[in-house]
């Protein structure tokens, strides 16, 4: 009897703590407002590093999720899909996910961590040529978009093969390790780095450490999930409802192109490259002479980014996702000026195409538009006519599902 009393008293506190955690989780979940389509119009951090908003958007049958990088920020251009399809004018809402330096590995981790929310669905993938340098994405750029929540979630997903988890862990461990060597522990959760190292290359000591820290990882999944919901809730509270216009039956693409060209002409008056005035003034301008042949040694033919692209496509395959991959061209006139030759550009284009074909990925190949005026809005990002080509493809992509 006395023993039972001792056991009961010992259990009271853990049970109370558990009830507190469950109560907080319930309260936060109940307080999250209903998902608003307007969350798709901008590339909010909560969508890049979290999972809640992704799941909510994926559950809506009229949402098209677009994973991209810095080109998504070109919201001053009317043909950017967020502007072009505002008010669901073609019957669907786009959801932009990504920002500068979000490349294949970051997208792969987000999709891998999405559970079943994207399974059987379609997403659009855009990666940028400039990440195909020899070492692939830099550690600090990877870290800027790394999500411990996503890593822990994907590792707990039984639907993913051990091989792909190992591939992701190997790259994550490598980049987290490089980041720590550069910046110390600041900003990084060392426990997650150790977990990635263990999953990439398990040894006796790391297995022991992993067994000891397993409860910590389980708790962190719960805590990151709560934090994600709370942050998403705050974002949704701050957003207005998207205004819906009556869907148009047909879009007059010829008229849209004329309007895009006219807009581009007005926004690119101070240079001969068809580059946005502000961009040209800030990054080129009086330094134009110094840019001549600066990329004579640049080569995208060998890069770790190709391995990351394979990981991304393999994750899509294992999740049963049909992606549309947008193959973005380089700026032909600018690249010729800076000495990044057509031959070396072609090698990069072909490498990416071969990998996409290997995984039977539907590809929107825009690489033939290198010299098309106003196709890009600066030296690397899709512009007025480039986005218009993507918009056309999105309409077909949406109607084919």
């Amino acid at each position, binding site marked *: 009897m006395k023993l039972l009393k001792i056991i009961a008293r010992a259990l009271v*506190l853990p049970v109370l703590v558990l009830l507190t955690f469950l109560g907080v989780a319930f309260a936060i979940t109940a307080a999250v407002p209903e998902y608003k389509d307007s969350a798709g119009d901008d590339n909010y951090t909560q969508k890049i590093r979290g999972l809640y908003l992704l799941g909510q958007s994926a559950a809506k049958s009229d949402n098209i999720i677009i994973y991209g990088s810095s080109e998504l920020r070109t919201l001053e251009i009317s043909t950017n899909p967020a502007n072009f399809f505002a008010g669901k004018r073609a019957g669907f809402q786009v959801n932009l996910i990504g920002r500068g330096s979000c490349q294949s590995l970051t997208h792969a981790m987000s999709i891998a961590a999405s559970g079943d929310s994207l399974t059987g669905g379609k997403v659009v993938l855009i990666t940028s040529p400039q990440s195909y340098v020899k070492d692939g994405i830099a550690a600090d750029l990877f870290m800027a978009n790394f999500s411990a929540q996503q890593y822990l979630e994907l590792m707990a997903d039984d639907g993913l093969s051990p091989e792909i988890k190992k591939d992701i862990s190997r790259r994550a461990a490598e980049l987290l390790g490089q980041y720590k060597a550069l910046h110390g522990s600041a900003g990084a959760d*060392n426990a997650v780095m150790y977990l990635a190292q263990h999953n990439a290359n398990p040894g006796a000591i790391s297995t022991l450490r992993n067994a000891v820290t397993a409860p910590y990882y389980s708790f962190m999944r719960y*805590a990151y999930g709560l934090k994600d919901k709370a942050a998403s809730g705050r974002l949704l509270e701050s957003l207005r409802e998207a205004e819906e216009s009556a869907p148009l039956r047909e879009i007059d693409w010829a008229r849209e192109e004329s309007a895009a060209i006219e807009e581009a002409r007005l926004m690119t008056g101070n240079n001969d490259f068809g580059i946005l005035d502000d961009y040209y003034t800030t990054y080129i301008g009086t330094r134009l002479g110094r840019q001549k042949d600066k990329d004579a040694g640049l080569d995208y033919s060998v890069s770790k980014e190709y391995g990351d692209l394979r990981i991304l496509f393999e994750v899509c395959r294992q999740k049963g996702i049909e992606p549309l991959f947008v193959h973005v061209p380089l700026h032909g006139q600018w690249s010729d000026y800076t000495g990044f030759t057509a031959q070396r550009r072609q090698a990069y284009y072909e490498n990416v195409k071969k990998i996409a074909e290997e995984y039977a990925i539907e590809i929107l190949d825009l690489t033939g538009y290198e010299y098309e005026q106003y196709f890009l809005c600066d030296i690397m990002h899709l512009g007025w006519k480039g986005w218009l080509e993507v918009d056309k493809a999105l309409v077909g992509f949406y109607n084919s599902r």
Partner: protein
Amino acid sequence: MIKRLSDFITAAEEFVYSHTALRYLWYIGIVLALLLFWVYGEDAGTAFVYNAF
């Protein structure tokens, strides 16, 4: 002033710890505060785990 404040804190502490229910409530309050700080603090995650490992 400080002496009075110190005496008050000591008395409150003794009072809380002499009652099991209050003691448990105090523990739960701390857990709740830490959890809410983690969930709503901007860089709370980093603050918690920065040097834990």
